[in-house]
């Protein structure tokens, strides 16, 4: 299984600012995923990030609000831009495993916007 770390683990940010969340995995993976988990809710996929190509965003999520970088096979960042209190959530990254449709998740970043 992959070991995934995320930074920061939590943050409290002011409305209108931006936060960049880092996701590091201990092995090379082609596909990485970013999810949002709003308080008391389930996980919703934001985008899929493949190395060497533009991220693919799900309905309701746009690149201007959630720009993603994927500079290499072990690292990705998600930026939450121009934050509002509605962006308060846990943001999780995940990576594909070796078995079909296997995903391993990072520990998440808890974001609070005041």
């Amino acid at each position, binding site marked *: 299984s992959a070991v995934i770390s995320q930074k920061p683990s939590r943050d409290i940010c002011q409305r209108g600012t931006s936060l960049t969340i880092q996701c590091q995995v201990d092995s090379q993976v082609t596909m990485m*995923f970013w999810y949002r988990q709003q308080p008391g809710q*389930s996980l*919703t996929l934001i985008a*899929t990030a493949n190395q060497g190509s533009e991220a693919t965003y799900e309905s309701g999520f746009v690149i201007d609000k959630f720009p993603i970088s994927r500079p290499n096979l072990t690292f990705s960042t998600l930026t939450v831009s121009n934050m509002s209190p509605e962006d308060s959530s846990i943001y*999780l990254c995940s990576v594909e495993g070796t*078995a079909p449709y296997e995903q*391993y*998740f990072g520990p998440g970043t808890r974001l609070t916007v005041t």
Partner: protein
Amino acid sequence: AQTVTQSQPEMSVQEAETVTLSCTYDTSESDYYLFWYKQPPSRQMILVIRQEAYKQQNATENRFSVNFQKAAKSFSLKISDSQLGDAAMYFCAHTYGQNFVFGPGTRLSVLP
């Protein structure tokens, strides 16, 4: 629409007893995978068990087993000999293309 329904927002079980968490789903895919993930207070999502839809045999992993009814699109999780460490949110999910669709979750409490 691809949906996952977990009709039990909260469940509780006595330690050492058995509990079953329900999940139903709707997908237009003919070939897909189903999963149960556990999310303890640490927030780490942990894969509990997975089932390939084309396999009729129910998956088992130690104390965890599933009852997969493909025609009914039902995928329940049975936890036997419940332990205090099983307390967590449990999410049912299915694949849709390369992506996952998650249910709303069931919060499981284990009573000593």
